[in-house]
Every structure is written in C-alpha cells, then in structure tokens.
C-alpha cells in the first residue's frame, strides 16, 4: 500500500469520530452556531460564484434590452406606483383613525417595523429542505430568528447567520411553524410547513371552529418572534373527517416562496458597519394586512 502514517482504518475511525462529535454538538448545543457562521465565511465565495451566472444574465438583460421594452416597463411601474399611492392615501386616513381609536381606548401605539432589503443569492440544492440564502449577514444587522417577508407575505425566518450571508428557513419547510390568526374573526391557530412549497397545514383546529376556504391568515405576534399583522397564507381547503378530533385544514402561502428575488428582513439590529448599499426603511404592518 501507498499509505504512510496511520493506517487506513485508523484514519476512517478518526474521521468518523470527528464527524459524529460535530453532528452531536451541532444538533444539541447552541454555541456551535458561531463555529458554523465562522466556517461559512470560507464557502461564501462559492455561494457568490453560484449566483454569478444569474446576476450576469440580469445585468446583460438590463444592459441590452431595447428602449421600447424599458419604456413599456417604466409606464407599467408608474401606473403601479400611482395605484399604490392612491391606496396609500386611504390607508393614511385609516391609520390615523386607528391611532385615534387606540388613544381613546388607552391602548399602546403599534410599533412601526424597520426593514432591510435583501437579495436571494442561493436556493437549497436539497429536495428535503426549503431554505434560501440571502446576501445579508451579521455585518448588516441580521440575527437568528429574524422574520423575513416578501412583497406579498411572510417568507420565513433566519436560521443561521454568517458575516456576509444568512440562511432563511421558508415557512413551507417541515421544521417551520408560525402562530397565526384568522383575519376575519381573530381565531388563533398554528401554521406548520408541509414540505411542499405551496402548502401549509393548520394544526389542531377543532371541528367546530369557524374557518372556511378563502380566510386570510396573518401573523398573530404571540410567540414574540414574528411581528403582528403580516399576511401569511390563505386557507385553501377545510376537511372535516368524522373519525378524527381535528379538522384537516391546508392553506396556500401568499409569499412567493420559490420565486421571490428580493426579500425584506424585519427589524434588523443596528448594523455594525453601515454601507450605502443597504436599503433600509420602515413599513407599517397595518398597511400590509389590509392589502
């Protein structure tokens, strides 16, 4: 044999023991997250490289697209902006009214959520998990457990953060659950990922509960992880099965989990290093919930 040093079997044993120890501590202990985030920096160039063709393509498309297409797109965007701002006018009045009513009731004023714009730079190349990689990391104020939304609804939450990137667990993953309430009547349920990107399951819904297809589910803010009032899903089917104590309810996520390129990360920490690139702003959850 060519092998010098310790024998082949011994090397395998060492590697096995090492990987078992790694898996055990990664599974059990929280502080391994720091080790992982440190190591992830080493593969960050790879993650950027994977996204490179995509970025080149969109850069090329933008550079070489013809004038008419750009004009048409511009007109469309202007129209959209007009529509949105007209909606927003009514919303401003409603928010003001809401505040006045809350003051009458001596209720606490709702917080405005700040957000950080992120771009999806990688999808998970694994059929069993639903995660995406976002180009914002600890440097930009991202933290674990941070809620992530897109233009239409809740995407999921941040599960691991490294210096320049972070990993977002999508709401459709089987490991994901979010406390929601039915917008129509305030009934509280928990929406659990089904593993399919277009379906969430609602757990432990009593057979007698007032819930029907088409109901809008919004975050309830009860677990303290997701801010209140963001749309999550729309109930698609409600099945009552005589033999079972709970109804089987499935819902369709409103966020475009597998298509969104830009995401908003809510309430980032104060960034340690402020770059001009990071677009931040504020959005009020009421505005979104009404849409």
């Amino acid at each position, binding site marked *: 044999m060519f092998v010098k040093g310790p024998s082949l079997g011994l090397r395998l044993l060492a590697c096995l023991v090492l990987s078992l120890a790694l898996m055990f501590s990664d599974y059990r202990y929280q502080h391994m997250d720091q080790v992982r985030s440190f190591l992830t920096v080493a593969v960050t160039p790879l993650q950027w490289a994977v996204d490179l063709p995509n970025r080149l393509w969109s850069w090329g498309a933008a550079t070489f697209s013809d004038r008419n297409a750009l004009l048409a797109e511009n007109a469309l965007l202007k129209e959209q902006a007009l529509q949105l701002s007209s909606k927003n006018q009514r919303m401003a009045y409603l928010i003001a009214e809401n505040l006045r009513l809350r003051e009458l009731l001596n209720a606490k004023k709702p917080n405005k959520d700040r957000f950080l714009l992120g771009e999806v730079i990688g999808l998970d190349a694994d059929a069993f998990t639903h995660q995406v990689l976002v180009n914002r990391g600890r440097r930009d104020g991202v933290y674990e457990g941070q809620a992530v939304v897109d233009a239409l609804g809740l995407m999921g939450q941040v599960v691991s953060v490294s210096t320049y990137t972070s990993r977002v667990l999508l709401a459709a993953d089987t490991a994901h659950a979010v406390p929601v309430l039915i917008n129509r009547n305030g009934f509280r349920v928990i929406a659990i990922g089904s593993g399919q990107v277009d379906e969430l399951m609602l757990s432990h819904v009593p057979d007698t509960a007032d819930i029907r297809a088409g109901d809008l589910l919004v975050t309830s803010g009860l677990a303290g992880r997701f801010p209140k009032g963001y749309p999550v899903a729309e109930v698609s089917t409600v099945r009552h099965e005589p033999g079972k104590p709970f109804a089987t309810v499935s819902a369709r996520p409103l966020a475009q989990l*597998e298509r969104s390129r830009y995401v908003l990360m809510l309430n980032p920490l104060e960034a340690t290093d402020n770059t001009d690139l990071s677009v931040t702003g504020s959005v009020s959850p009421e505005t979104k919930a009404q849409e």
Partner: protein
Amino acid sequence: MFVILFTFVFALLLAAMPLPDTFLWAQPEWATMVLIYWCIALPHRVGVLAGFFLGLCMDLLDGSLLGQNAMAMSVIAYVALLLYQRMRNYGALQQALMVGLLISISLLIFQWVQNLTSVAADTLAFLLPAVTSMLLWPWFFIGMRTIRRRFQIH
C-alpha cells in the same frame, strides 16, 4: 495539486447550482463522483481526510448538520481506497455499477442521519442521484482522465 482542488471546487459549484425541483431529485452527486475518481486514480494523494473536508464544505453549503456529509464522504473515500486496484481493472459498465453502489451507500448514510435529526424522504426516490451518477460515470471518467493526463498529475 491545484488541479485536484479546482475539480473539487467545480464539483461543489455544480452541486450548489439552483435547479427546478424535479431535476433536484435526480441531480448527479458531482462532488462524490470527483472524490471517487481521485481515490481510484491517486490513492496516495486523495483519501479519507480529503473526503472529510469535502463533506464539511458540502455541509456548509447545504446547511445540513455539520458532519453529516463529512461522515458519508469519509466512508466513501475509505471504501474507494479499499477497492481501487479492482476498480482500475473493471470495464466501464462494471465500474459504473460499482460507483452507483458507492453513491447509494453515501446517500443512505445521509438519509440515516436525516431520519434521526429531522424529516427524511418517505420513498426510495432519494436514491435517484445514484442512478444518474451511474449513467454519467463512463463519460465522467473519460473526462477526468483527460484532465489528469493533460496536467500530468501523478
């Protein structure tokens, strides 16, 4: 040395490429194939440790449990090192079958851990990458051999 490293990096890039869900199920295990090739061709340079570090990179890229791919890859490198003399003498078909078997083993190890820690596949469809890798192996082998001869890696 750089060429070997480059092939590994390229394989990792291929493995991390975003694909539609249907293709994802049958995506060939590029990184594992590269590892097996180098273990057969240069058993004195690429071995269990290389497999371990390759697996660790895969774990970091996939977001899977740290050590999950690393364990599978070390085992694959070990088996490939045990078999390399025989593998060299096999014909293309026999070699491809053997590679399919090796990759199935690595997928199986991955699924075991997946089953223990979170949700695993409920069908045998997770073995599809082994089939596609097996089908691609003869061409992959010729390509890698060309690279090895071109850059005269011993």
